[in-house]
């Protein structure tokens, strides 16, 4: 038998093993050297011509439904917001959340009828689908009436509630007739395009298909067919690849120039730390959101990694949502407004922001974001804020309110009434977990026997409790309007209340169970008026609603939700930021397409 070169009868022969290992290491080093890696680049479009967008939130490792391009089947909204709304589909209007500007896109104009029962829309001329067919009013009619008549589709019930029919005047003009008046219908479903998207479908492709199961995916035939500047060329669990459509209608008509990136790639970011490393390594151009501290580290390692603000600690951008302490105003101990006031006096918002979010956002006391459209209203209700002083952390005032409500402190220092201690859970979904422990501490320091209860990662039980009026206190983001007070203030209308405790309410963000006929009346009036900060009637109604909101502590607005969105200037520059706010910086929202049209090649590596 031949002797092993590594072994002698007595011991391992290190002299033989050493050179062999050394040779192996050298071979590996040569195989994976930067030069070898560059030479072996497997992508058929150069990195410098490729725009890589990672999924918005870190954590995912693979794309959901990579080969399902149906925007309206179950889960369709996620597909639209993830990939389709900036590549395949365009929208009648886009919207700049920072300024409140409505940007005509596929449509040139719209007019709401005086009775708010219909909307007249004019399309831009020369729009084509990616297969060369003309985009016409018939496609809009087909889409809206398909939604109206197909209960299994996303937004179907909304459209069935509002849309009577679509009346086509000609290829460019149509009228949407509504079942009942709604001054905001067109804005809500066709202009803002952030949380709600209604892409228009090509009738010649979709007619005759089962809209609930049609995957709208066939690369051989160019499907999905849309009007957008890109076409799908590949899709797998790791990524979706879209190549530029050089025959894009907007470039042909001169409406827009072709975008510079030849290929757009969507990938999953991986864990938060991995996503940060990949961003630092210039693997992503539009990256996932980061925690402020992580962003600062990434920016220090690679100055090309940037965010919305150019200086900290508040690097992030608003998103029309507010960090909020929800209160059950109908059932349980929080039904007493004096207890709600005491809770509010127990909270130190600035400390909360500093501890939970490293000072990366601003405290807020009414449910208005700092978007331009809303700031105009906030200044007009500042007097009410000064009057009620909701941001007034004061243990003495908290104690006074509790005593007025009939509570006394028990031997353990917690508030009790008739021998029963006020004990409750502070319900907190996983994505808001930084807030929970801080609020718990502040409330316990003021005598509330509150326990932070986390729901992570499954938040369904949390929503089951909160939406059915079974919780007392919960942390939530209250998302509402991005351009006028009505969008958020309406959530305190009693129409959103649960029919009875234990039954789910009608809307996910309207959980206060607040009921006040006077308030309902104000909201009903606002419902029929188009918003304007210069309209005295609208502003007066806003003031009245805010007055009641603050007086009755319908909920406790804590701070603005701000996301540290990240971009990388290495390969592409010209991203939106606080100095160049041409669109909100969220890759989930349709106006993000504006950045894809504006970015220019960077210096590269």
């Amino acid at each position, binding site marked *: 038998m031949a002797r092993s070169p590594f072994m002698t009868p007595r*011991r*391992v022969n290190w002299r033989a093993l050493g050179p062999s290992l050394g040779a192996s290491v050298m071979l590996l080093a040569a195989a994976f050297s930067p030069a070898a*890696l560059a030479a072996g680049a497997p992508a058929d479009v150069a990195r410098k011509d490729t725009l890589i967008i990672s999924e918005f939130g870190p954590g995912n*490792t693979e794309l959901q439904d990579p080969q399902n391009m149906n925007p309206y089947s179950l889960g369709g909204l996620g597909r639209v917001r993830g990939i389709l709304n900036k590549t395949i589909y365009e929208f009648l209007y886009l919207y700049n959340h920072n300024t409140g500007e409505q940007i005509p896109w596929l449509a040139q104009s719209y007019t709401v009828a005086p009775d708010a029962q219909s909307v007249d829309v004019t399309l831009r001329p020369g729009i084509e689908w990616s297969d060369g067919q003309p985009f016409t009013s018939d496609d809009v009619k087909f889409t809206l009436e398909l939604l109206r008549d197909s*209960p299994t589709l996303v937004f179907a*019930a909304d459209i069935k509630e509002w849309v009577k029919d679509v009346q086509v005047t000609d290829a460019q003009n149509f009228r949407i007739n509504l079942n009942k008046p709604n001054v905001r219908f067109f804005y809500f479903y066709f202009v803002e395009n952030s949380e709600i998207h209604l892409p228009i479908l090509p009738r010649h492709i979709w007619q005759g298909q089962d809209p609930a199961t049609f995957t709208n995916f066939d690369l051989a035939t160019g499907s999905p067919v849309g009007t957008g500047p890109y076409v799908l060329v590949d899709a797998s*669990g790791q*990524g979706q690849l879209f190549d530029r459509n050089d025959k894009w209608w907007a470039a042909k008509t001169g409406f827009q120039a072709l975008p510079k990136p030849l290929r757009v790639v969507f990938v999953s970011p991986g*864990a938060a730390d991995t996503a940060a490393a990949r961003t*630092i390594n210039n693997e992503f151009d539009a990256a996932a959101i980061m925690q402020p501290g992580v962003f600062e580290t990434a920016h220090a390692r690679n100055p090309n990694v940037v965010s919305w603000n150019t200086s900290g600690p508040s690097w992030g951008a608003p998103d029309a949502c507010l960090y909020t302490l929800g209160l059950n105003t109908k059932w349980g101990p929080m039904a007493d407004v004096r207890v709600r006031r005491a809770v509010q006096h127990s909270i130190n918002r600035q400390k909360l922001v500093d501890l939970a979010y490293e000072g990366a956002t601003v405290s807020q006391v009414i449910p208005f974001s700092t978007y331009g459209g809303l700031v105009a209203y906030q200044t007009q209700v500042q007097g009410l804020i000064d009057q009620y002083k909701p941001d007034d952390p004061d243990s003495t005032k908290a104690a006074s309110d509790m005593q007025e409500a009939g509570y006394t402190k028990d031997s353990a220092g917690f508030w009790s009434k008739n021998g029963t201690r006020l004990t409750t859970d502070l319900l907190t979904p996983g994505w808001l977990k930084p807030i929970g422990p801080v609020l718990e501490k502040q409330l316990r320091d003021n005598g509330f026997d509150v326990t932070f209860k986390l729901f992570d990662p499954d938040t369904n039980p949390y929503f089951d409790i909160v939406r059915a009026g079974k919780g007392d206190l919960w942390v939530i983001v209250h998302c509402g309007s991005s351009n006028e007070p009505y969008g958020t203030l309406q959530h305190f209308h009693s129409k959103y209340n649960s029919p009875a405790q234990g039954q789910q309410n009608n809307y996910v963000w309207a959980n206060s169970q607040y009921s006040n006929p006077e308030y309902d009346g104000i909201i009903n009036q606002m419902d029929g008026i188009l918003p304007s900060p210069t309209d005295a009637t609208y502003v007066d109604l806003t003031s009245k609603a805010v007055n009641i909101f603050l007086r009755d502590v319908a909920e406790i607005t804590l701070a603005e939700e701000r996301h540290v969105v990240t971009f990388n200037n290495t390969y592409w520059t010209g991203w939106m930021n606080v100095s160049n706010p041409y669109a909100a910086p969220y890759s989930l929202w349709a106006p993000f397409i504006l950045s894809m049209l504006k970015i220019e090649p960077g210096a590269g590596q």
Partner: protein
Amino acid sequence: MSLAYVVRRLGVFVLVIVVAVSINFFIPRLRSTNPIEARMNEYAAQGGGNAAASMKALIVVYNQKFGFDKPLWEQYVNYWRDLARFDLGTSVAFFPGLVRDEILRAAPWTIGLLAVSTLMAFFIGSVLGALLAWPNTSRLFSIFVPVLMTLSAIPYYLLGLLLIYLLALVWPILPTAGAYTSGARLALTWPIVGDIVRHAILPAGSIILAGIGFWGLGMRAMMVTIMGEDYMILAQAKGLRSPTIFWRYSLRNALLPQITGLALSLASIMSGALLVEIVFAYPGIGYLLYRGISGNDYFVIQGVTLFIIVSVAFALLLLDFIYPLLDPRIQFRRS
């Protein structure tokens, strides 16, 4: 090996699968959350469905579509009926995607990564562990003991993060994450194959580094036991050469329990290495299962766990059949 034993063993195999699949069917349903309502909540949280009727209408429609409106026993019977047709159902979260397709899409990545890394960890760990116990090995080799012990105690996802930091950030010679270069199209070409291998080095490396310790320490313990066996003394007395004793007498005998462990490890590959997949953004099956659980997607949970159960049960079955071939001392027959 008697026919009766084979039949009995096959019966146990079927019984294990039936019981496991039944448990697997009922446990997710013990949760109070309805998967359709959960999906709708997610959808509502994204901003959809402002009309009061939206959610309720969709929930009713999809509950009927998925059969959640039927009594539990009827769902159970239907599940077995579908299973008999190799139909694992339609995913709730990936509707209208079939669970089978989702598994087939994710499985190759996981199997490829974990099979190679498990085998490599096994072979390297076992040989190193055997050398550690071998009296003729250089004393320098003993430095591997604390290294192996340390590595076996570190979770592989932490090793993964460490590898990313060292080899992707500080000394960027390997890609940070992903299964292949973002922007590339999957095709059976050498550049793509090389790209996939290159992307697999860090995730596989983290599993191998953690696994070497596990296999190495196990092997070392077995070798120490075997050193005192009579046949080892006889081999030395016969004057056999050291490598012959090492490879043929000690290593081969010490490997038997290791092979049991290897079979189980290979069989459980289908469950994926969730944390490695998350850390390295690897599009594998572990994450599919995780998402199925967090999304109350009964059909995905059932589909993936069915694969795991069948894999483990089949591996054990196979092991029982091939053990006598590996170790002639083991025989399955009536005494």
